[in-house]
């Protein structure tokens, strides 16, 4: 994993277990680093966003990659400022497309260079981010469940025989 270059110094002591290597990556180097893994034969395993806004004002993004042959998990930990978009790696790993959309809708974290950053699991037009620690309940007006269908035409109730 020398090709990944030097690791960013750890911004927190929070330990990570369950991976052969957990490495802090700067947001700017994310695409480059994941391309190194892609070319080394790793597959995209998972991506997690953790809300650390209250304590640090950032989101912690955890990407894990693994290998089919001789499994060894590599975790990328990214300390992403809440206001700045993170570079999308959907061009490197197809799986990132949906995972980034999920992070966007659930946390409001933007990804730059994403081809289709829109709602995935939540209804289109949802304006709140439910996995934020600050989230409590959706505002009462967020869902419009009333179907605004046109009034049924005469056809819907065929008249009896004339």
């Amino acid at each position, binding site marked *: 994993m020398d090709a990944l270059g030097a690791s960013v110094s750890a911004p927190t002591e929070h330990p990570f277990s369950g991976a052969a290597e957990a490495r802090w990556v700067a947001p700017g180097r994310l695409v480059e680093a994941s391309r190194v893994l892609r070319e080394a034969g790793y597959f*995209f*395993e998972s991506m*997690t966003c953790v*809300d650390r806004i209250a304590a640090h004002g950032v989101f912690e993004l955890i990407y894990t990659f693994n290998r*089919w042959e001789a499994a060894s998990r590599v975790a990328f930990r990214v300390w992403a400022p809440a206001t700045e978009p993170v570079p999308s790696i959907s061009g490197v790993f*197809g799986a990132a*497309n949906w995972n980034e959309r999920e992070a966007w809708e659930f946390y409001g974290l933007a990804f730059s260079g994403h081809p289709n950053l829109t709602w995935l699991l*939540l209804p289109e037009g949802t304006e709140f981010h439910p996995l934020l620690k600050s989230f409590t309940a959706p505002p009462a007006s967020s869902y419009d469940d009333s179907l605004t269908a046109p009034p049924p035409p005469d056809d819907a109730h065929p008249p009896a025989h004339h």
Partner: protein
Amino acid sequence: MRTHPPTTDPLDTYTLNMGPQHPSTHGVLRLLLTLRGEEIVTAEPVIGYSHRAHEKMAENRTYAQFLPNTSRQDYLSGMIYNFAWVEAVEKMAGIPVPERALVARVILAEFNRIASHLLWIGAFLLDLGAPTPFLYCWDDREAILFLLESVTGSRLTYASGRFGGLARDLDADFPRRAREVIAKLRARWPEYDRLIEDNVIFRNRAIGVGVLTRDQCRSYGVTGPTLRGSGVPYDVRKAEPYGAYPRFEFDIPTRPEGDVFARYWVRVQEMRQSVRIIEQALDQLPGGPFLEPGSIGVKKRLKLPVGTQYYAVESARGHYGILLVSEGGAEPYRAKFRTPSYPNLAVLTEAMPGTLVADAVAILGSTDLVMPEVDR
């Protein structure tokens, strides 16, 4: 398969909204198909119809309270998900597990895997228009569900794992009943082979259809039987052995073609390997306690040390990962569930274009999706 050059001309194509209410979308998946005649130009899965925010629920419940949620992510192999949660917490908290519970978990999980694969074979053949295998598979699966019910008390959504063991012990008669079920399964296999695998129509529908290349699998993180049908012998039970799996002998069936038939074949062979594991486990089932004496169980509030941990198991559908973030509280700070159906569905946007509507149904069926697991 492709007979015309790809087109996006709106006058040449039309949109077919397949689902969320459709007999073959296995729950509530919506496929936005752009078709030219019957040929698929683009396919876009629209998901989220059964999103229940399991990850948010996890942040608001204690580790024990979250137990029943796990088997509701994938209700077809809920036992495996349930044990995965229990094992992830045990590993992080350092809770010892008695030998008997470890082996019993393997037995129950493998039975659950077979039940899941049986249901899949039935539902898949139903997608291909053959209703009869469904009822045969259902009959076999019923025998397994009876067996699991006798141990756990539930048929589908199990919550039988406990931190440090199991909720209930396997009774003295269990090995006999388990072997009876195995004998029943074994007797049916040649019949399935003749009815399904040797059928010329099935072969025509399945061979060469919906090929997933290794590179597509790598890019999307496809795992499980879907990946093994593309010739990659990756199985978490072997790659990162957990629980009592290292002590049992079994093979990873793979097939290089990557088509629908390969995925079918791999699952059929996997059931045989699962039976192999169960038989070894029944032979080696140790005595002793089924729950660590003085263990935490579900009653006391369990607190995990500060840290992040990734834990993976092999579910019936593939690599199921749990990423747990603890800040030392009684509830997880963050729990991420990396469910196998999610990437297995995402990759279909690349596998479907160029096939026909009938193939779309076959391809969708062959990846063994469970929509609540995709949506969580």
